[in-house]
C-alpha cells in the first residue's frame, strides 16, 4: 500500500485501483477544532483537484480536493456524524472517502511521505 500527499494537505492511500483519501495532521492543526464535515456520496464522479468534501472549524469552511480522478465508492458517514473522529485519527478512522481511480498515473505527481514532510517544514 502506497501513501501519497498533495500540496493541499490531503493524503491518499492506494490499494489496487481503489484509494482512500483523508486530510493530514498538519491540515487539522491549521483548521482547529472541526465542527462540521461533509463527505461525497457514493457514485459521484470527481476530477483530480475537484472539491470533493468540506471541513469546517468554528471560524471557517475549507474544501478537501480529490487528489485523483474517479468515482467515489464510499463516503465516511462516521465523520459526518462526529467530526471529532477526524481530529482523533486523521490517518485512520478519520478518512473522508474511497475512490475508484480512473487514471492511476495521476499519482505520479504527488509527494511521498518524505517529500511531504519537507514541504510542510518549508511552510510558515
Amino acid at each position, binding site marked *: 500500500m502506497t501513501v501519497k500527499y498533495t500540496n493541499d494537505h490531503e493524503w491518499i492511500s492506494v490499494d489496487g485501483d481503489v484509494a482512500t483519501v483523508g486530510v493530514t495532521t498538519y491540515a487539522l492543526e491549521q483548521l*482547529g*477544532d472541526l*465542527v*462540521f464535515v*461533509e463527505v461525497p456520496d457514493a457514485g459521484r464522479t470527481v476530477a483530480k483537484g475537484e472539491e470533493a468534501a*468540506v471541513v*469546517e*472549524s*468554528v*471560524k*471557517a*469552511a475549507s474544501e478537501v480536493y480529490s487528489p485523483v480522478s474517479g468515482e467515489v465508492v464510499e463516503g465516511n458517514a462516521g465523520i459526518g456524524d462526529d467530526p471529532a473522529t477526524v481530529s482523533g485519527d486523521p490517518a485512520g478512522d478519520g478518512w473522508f472517502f474511497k475512490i475508484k481511480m480512473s487514471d492511476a498515473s495521476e499519482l505520479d505527481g504527488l509527494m511521498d511521505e518524505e517529500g511531504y514532510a519537507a514541504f510542510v517544514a518549508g511552510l*510558515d
Partner: protein
Amino acid sequence: MSESENLHTTPLDALHRKLGAKMVPFAGYAMPVQYPAGILTEHLHTRDAASLFDVSHMGQAFLMGDDAIDAFETLVPGDYQVLAEGKTRYTVLLNNQGGIMDDLMATRIPGGLYLVVNAACKDQDFAHIEAGTKGRATLEILTDRALVALQGPKAGDVLARLAPATADMTFMTFREVDIRGIPCFATRSGYTGEDGFEISVPSDRAEELARALLAEPEVEAAGLGSRDSLRLEAGLCLYGHDITTETTPIEGDIKWVVNKRRRETGGFPGADIILGQLANGTERTRVGILPEGRAPAREGTEIQDLSGNTIGTVTSGGFGPSVGGPIAMGYVTTAFAGENTEINLIVRGKALAAKVVKMPFTQKSYKTA
C-alpha cells in the same frame, strides 16, 4: 499565515507568543486568534469560568470640555446628558444617511467622556469626532494604554479578589481602580454575553496585570476566535459585517440606541431618515437565524424564502459551541423577520432549511444589580 510586515503589536505581544498563541493579522495588528487550547475550549471556558482577552488594538480616547457632552451628541443618537457620571452607554457614530460609521462605548467621566472604539475604524473615528466637536471639546487619544477583557461568570469573583472596589460595580458602570496596585479603568461590560470587565491599563504595566489575572485559577487566555463565536451566540453585532455604513440602527435592530429624548429632539446625523424608519418601519431587518442541520452558513450566504426568492444575506455565521450547532445572523426583507419564519440558506448550491429566531442564542448573564 505568514508573519506579516508592518503589523502593529500590542503591549501583550510577547506574552501571547510565550503562551503559544496563533497570531494573525487583524485590523493592522498581530493578534492572538487562539491559544493551544483552541477556539472551542476557550469559548466553553468563558461561559463556564473566566477568560482573558487582549483587545488593546481597540481605540481609547477622552473627549473633554464643558461642552463635550452636547458636542458628542451631534454625532450619535444616544442621550448622554441624562447619563450619570460613571455610567457607560453603547452607541453608534452615524453618517448623514443614518448609516453606522462605527459602534462604540462611551462613559461619562468627570469633565467629559471616555470612548472605546473598534480597531479597524479608530483612525477615521477619531478624525470624525475631532472634526465634529472642534472648538467645543478636546479629543485626547490614549496611545499609551492597553485594554484587556476579563469575561465569564467567575470574572466578578476574580476581580473582586484582586480589586475589592470592583465587587459592587454593576453592568455598564465604570470605575478608576487599582488592581494589584496598577492604576486601571474598569468598565463592567464586554462582548461575550457574559458578566465581565473591560480593563484599561497603562501599556507598561499591561503584562503585569495580565499575568496577575491569568494566575487566578479560574482564568485562561482566550483569543479573537472565541471572542467572535461568543459575541455571535450573544447576538451582538460585529461592525463592518452586521452593521455598516449601509445599515441604519433601525435596520440593524438596535433601535434602542436612539434614546427617548433624541427621538423627540433629533439633532443627530441622518435623524430624518432614522426617525422616519422608527415611525414607518424598514424594508429589511437584522435577525437571528438557526439552521436546522449541522452545516454552518457563513457570511455572504444567500437567504431565500421557501419559493426560492432571494430575501436577504447572512452577515455573520458559524458554529456556536455552547449552542452545539450552527447559528447565524443576517438581513431579511422585513416581511420575513418574524420569529419562527421558515427560510432557506443556500450553502454550496443547496437549500438548507433554517428559521428566524430571537437572539441571543444563549442566555446573557450580566450583573444588573
